[in-house]
């Protein structure tokens, strides 16, 4: 077996263990050093992962673990969000009790995401998802002196364990009816399996688990509470890494394992997407807590992404990947600012952001760029993904009414989102009440993190070509090789 395929996963694990052990020898006054070590390590791995021009494709563990364009695409983004999140924690390293463990847990969750990007088997998918979920139980409830954080942790725990219970039972049914859990082997027999009700029920239950991870209706209840209660840096990681991992797996299951069944169920996915995006957009309107607002915004974004999956086409998958790329930069920039402001004022209410334009022009600009990009306004990163996504839906809108309805709902969602995102922007620059106008200091690592994200958002907005090409390549790799051999004219990917 070729262990070099797993080099990224092994190195991140070792880095996590090193941070954990380093805590034993480093005096508590120099804790911050561990954050720098973790950030430098991830930074090196990130340049290594993105910089390798043509990473060798291959499989390990008897086909369970696959390295291809899709996994490489996602791994870069997972490492990027881990890097930004670690940089954001360095500033508050003194106030987090057990800082070394916090960094190590972020690294272990990253390992779970890296494995999720490469999972080509329901068993590895389950183990990778659980590695992410269980570490997030701890990360969410990390500030255990705040009872909100603990409450969020317990809610995430119950909902997460429920979702994994459904998923495990679904995998058991899939294994029972198919006799295998590997995606390619299932894809080769999907016409026969598609007629087995046990297999279909198993698949539905598995999708429940993934639906929870991406916070799609009707498994979205946890998201606003957990986003609000968790420490801001954890929320940033939850909104980017964890959600992207869910979509990586959803795309792989949908298009590598059961493409024909996905095509059959496309209306179901489309309907869920529409309900999710309208639910997220409408519930975000009355929110006063910015973190909770981001929770609903994250639900709405999951809805848009599901529309791209429901398009069941190469363009749709490309749009989903492009959208996720821009979304990760955008959301990280937003949470970088939210983390600083909530730490400063001990509140995540909109009023804590009032007058931010005068208190810290840098932070205000960062959050504004992030929110404008989330709303999908050109020329920022959020625009192009949304545009491609709506285009992939519009391709079907002529022939099917439901897709037309989805297109209209997405446009309505965009309009509603303008309203609630600009509510925050207005509070920052044109506050109604006279706010506390003391300047907010921003530490070096946070500046660096914010800078990386903002440059990413602007660059991807103006020059989206490289990202779209990468996304297209990754999406093209989704078509299973055996399925092409079995069916020369593939109905799903055209």
């Amino acid at each position, binding site marked *: 077996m070729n262990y070099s395929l797993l080099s990224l996963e092994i190195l991140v694990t070792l880095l996590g263990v090193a941070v954990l052990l380093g805590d034993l020898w480093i005096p508590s006054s120099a804790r911050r050093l561990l954050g720098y070590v973790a950030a430098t390590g991830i930074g090196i791995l990130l340049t290594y992962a993105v910089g390798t021009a043509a990473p060798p494709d291959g499989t390990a563990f008897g086909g369970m673990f696959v390295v291809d364009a899709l996994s490489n695409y996602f791994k870069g983004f997972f490492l990027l969000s881990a890097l930004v999140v670690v940089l954001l924690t360095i500033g508050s390293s003194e106030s987090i009790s057990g800082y070394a463990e916090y960094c190590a847990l972020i690294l272990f969750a990253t390992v779970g995401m890296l494995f999720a990007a490469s999972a080509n088997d329901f068993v590895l998918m*389950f183990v990778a998802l659980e590695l992410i979920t269980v570490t997030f*139980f701890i990360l969410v409830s990390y500030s255990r002196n705040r*009872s909100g954080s603990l*409450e969020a*942790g317990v809610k995430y*725990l119950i909902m997460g364990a*429920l979702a994994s219970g459904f998923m495990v*039972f679904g*995998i058991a049914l899939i294994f029972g009816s198919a006799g295998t859990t590997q995606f390619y082997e299932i894809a080769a027999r999907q016409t026969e399996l598609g007629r087995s009700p046990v297999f279909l029920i198993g698949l539905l239950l598995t999708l429940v688990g993934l639906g929870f991870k991406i916070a799609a209706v009707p498994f979205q209840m946890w998201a606003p509470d957990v986003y609000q209660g968790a420490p801001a840096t954890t929320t940033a990681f939850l909104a980017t890494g964890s959600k992207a991992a869910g979509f990586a797996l959803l795309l792989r299951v949908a298009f590598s394992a059961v493409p024909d069944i996905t095509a059959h169920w496309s209306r179901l996915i489309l309907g869920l997407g529409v309900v999710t995006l309208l639910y997220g957009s409408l519930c975000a309107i009355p929110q006063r807590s910015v973190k909770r607002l981001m929770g609903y915004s994250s639900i709405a974004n999951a809805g848009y992404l599901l529309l791209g999956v429901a398009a069941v086409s190469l363009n749709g998958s490309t749009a989903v990947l492009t959208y996720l790329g821009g979304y990760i930069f955008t959301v990280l920039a937003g949470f970088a600012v939210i983390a600083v402001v909530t730490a400063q004022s001990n509140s995540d209410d909109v009023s804590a952001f009032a007058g931010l334009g005068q208190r810290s022009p840098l932070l205000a600009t960062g959050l504004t760029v992030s929110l404008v990009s989330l709303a999908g306004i050109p020329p920022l990163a959020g625009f192009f993904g949304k545009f491609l996504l709506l285009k992939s839906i519009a391709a079907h809108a002529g022939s099917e009414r439901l897709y037309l309805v989805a297109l209209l709902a997405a446009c309505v969602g965009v309009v509603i989102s303008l309203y609630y995102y600009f509510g925050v922007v207005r509070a920052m620059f044109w506050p109604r009440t006279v706010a506390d106008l003391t300047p907010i200091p921003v530490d070096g690592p946070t500046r660096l993190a914010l800078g990386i994200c903002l440059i990413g958002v602007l660059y991807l907005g103006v020059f989206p070509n490289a990202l779209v090409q990468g996304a297209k390549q990754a999406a093209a790799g989704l078509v299973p090789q055996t399925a092409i051999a079995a069916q020369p004219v593939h109905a799903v990917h055209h």
Partner: protein
Amino acid sequence: MTPGLHHYLIVSALLFSLGVFGVVSRRSLLVIYMSLELMLNAANLALVAFSQFNNNLDGQVMVFFIITVAAAEVAVGLALIVALYRKRRSAHVEDLTSLKY
């Protein structure tokens, strides 16, 4: 009469439903957590039964993964519930209401 595959599956489905019912109907976090474990074990039973009757050991390997993951989940979960109890003096879902808009 020796029990066949469907007997095992019926027991497994019953255990799973019992678990889901416990999660939605109970109010104590600990009982909810027990019900969640029941759901995982229902899946274990189904996997072992499928494995045995299809002569395919992969399912039993998966059971070991599930047991390991469930152990990790319980360790973290109980620690969280204990921490919450210390803070709030309660482990009931009705008291988890501080987060809302």
